[in-house]
């Protein structure tokens, strides 16, 4: 086992959750920017992936992120009615309503996936969301479900 995958026991000491946020360019990303410019404090656990619109997000991204070992996923875009592309977020809403329900149904904890809307002017809300999501994920502990582990080989070879 290499130094990269230290066994993370449940809520082991020093464990900090990794959360992937997939956000739209026009609202939430701008909102995150505003939070930064306004120097609003929020936990550093979130890695942001910017996409043009939540309608662009293939639900597979969310599942893939969970498989890769993220402890939580946050998806956020423009409030309904404010989509830069008119209705991308409304399409996304239908996808994510069913995706989240289906993930919950197979037993993925509710707090692992979060969907919300944050507008460009809501720097404060963005920080609130990240804080709340981080706390929810922390309470759940490290993700284990759907997470892929590499097969292990146990005989080392002299180089």
């Amino acid at each position, binding site marked *: 086992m290499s130094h990269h995958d230290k066994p993370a026991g449940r809520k082991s000491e020093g464990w900090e959750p990794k959360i992937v946020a997939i956000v739209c360019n026009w609202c939430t990303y701008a909102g995150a920017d505003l939070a930064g410019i306004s120097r609003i404090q929020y936990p550093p656990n979130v890695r942001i992936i910017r996409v043009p619109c939540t309608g662009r997000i293939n639900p597979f991204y969310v599942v893939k992120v969970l498989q890769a070992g993220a402890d939580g996923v946050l998806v956020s875009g423009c409030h309904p009615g404010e989509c830069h592309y008119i209705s991308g977020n409304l*399409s996304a809403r239908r996808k994510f309503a069913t995706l989240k329900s289906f993930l919950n149904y197979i*037993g993925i904890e509710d707090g692992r996936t979060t969907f919300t809307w944050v507008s460009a002017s809501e720097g404060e809300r963005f920080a609130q*969301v990240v804080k709340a999501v981080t706390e929810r994920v922390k309470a759940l502990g490290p993700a284990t479900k759907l997470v892929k582990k590499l097969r292990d080989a146990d005989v080392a070879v002299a180089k």
Partner: protein
Amino acid sequence: MEKVEKKLREEAKKLLAEKKVDVVVGYEAGTLPLTATPVFITAPEEADRLVWNAFCHHNLAKYVHDLISANRDSQKRLKPEDRKRKVVGVVTKGCTSRSLVIHLQERQYERLDLSILGVPCTGYVDRRALAEKLGGEEILEGSLDGANLKIRTASGEKTIAVKDVLAANCVTCRFNNPVISDVMLGEPAPAMNPAAEYAEIDEFEKLSPEERWAYFQKEMAKCIRCAACRQACPSCYCRTCFAEQSMPQWVGISEDPSDTQVFQFMRMYHMVGRCVDCGSCVSVCPMGVDLRKFLKKLDKDCFVLFNQRAGEKIDFPAPLQDQRMDDKEDFIFNPGGGH
């Protein structure tokens, strides 16, 4: 049912003789006792091979899509005016008709490409349920005798009522008569028990997340990645399945628990508003994975959230092709209240 079969053969013969269709996709008797298998009839004199009985479990819409797209591909290089339409006659029960509707909604072909031979359906026999009833004994011979199966095994003769071994999706079927057809062969079949449609899902939802996860894990562990579920599904018609893409590679190809879970999860999720509960994936699965437990949930959500049932209405877009400003959004997270 014999009456329907007789009419079916006559109708197929007529369509072929009058050259109104190029092929009739139907069922014929299988090589094993108490089975039926898909068949493609292209000459009127072969129409007598067609059968219609409680063993016809395949959703033939799958072949309709295959045949029409293969025909279209083969004519790509011809001038538009030289291209020939291939008209497919298809023996269509309720679930098959809804799959055809989905294809039409998704603009896979045109209504003109089809000649729908509607058959009333009272459900098909689930091979696993039957095997269980027989205690795993091999069926040496069998015949259908009205509402009963007459079966000979190594330990003797047995009689089993068809209704006791129907597939789960048939028992609670809401659409056992075709929603569209060009000709109906027989009186509509009596209703099944749709009131209990989501009973199994409701029960499963009551379990804890850990129990649900344990069940999902256990079922997925049976999967051998043969892809029979996908291949049998009329809604799985992508030219290249996400599972086979290499750039990016969405899921690994090995028999890895996580890859299998993700493959199955995403394949099933692609069925939002597109699964007609025909049971094909379940009946073809060599390992008996309980896919329906999950697929039916998508069906339920679709109805609860968007008030739609897959393939019910031809002039209505599929749920994920559509949206409304006032769609429910209870799942949207609101920090500081209102969640």
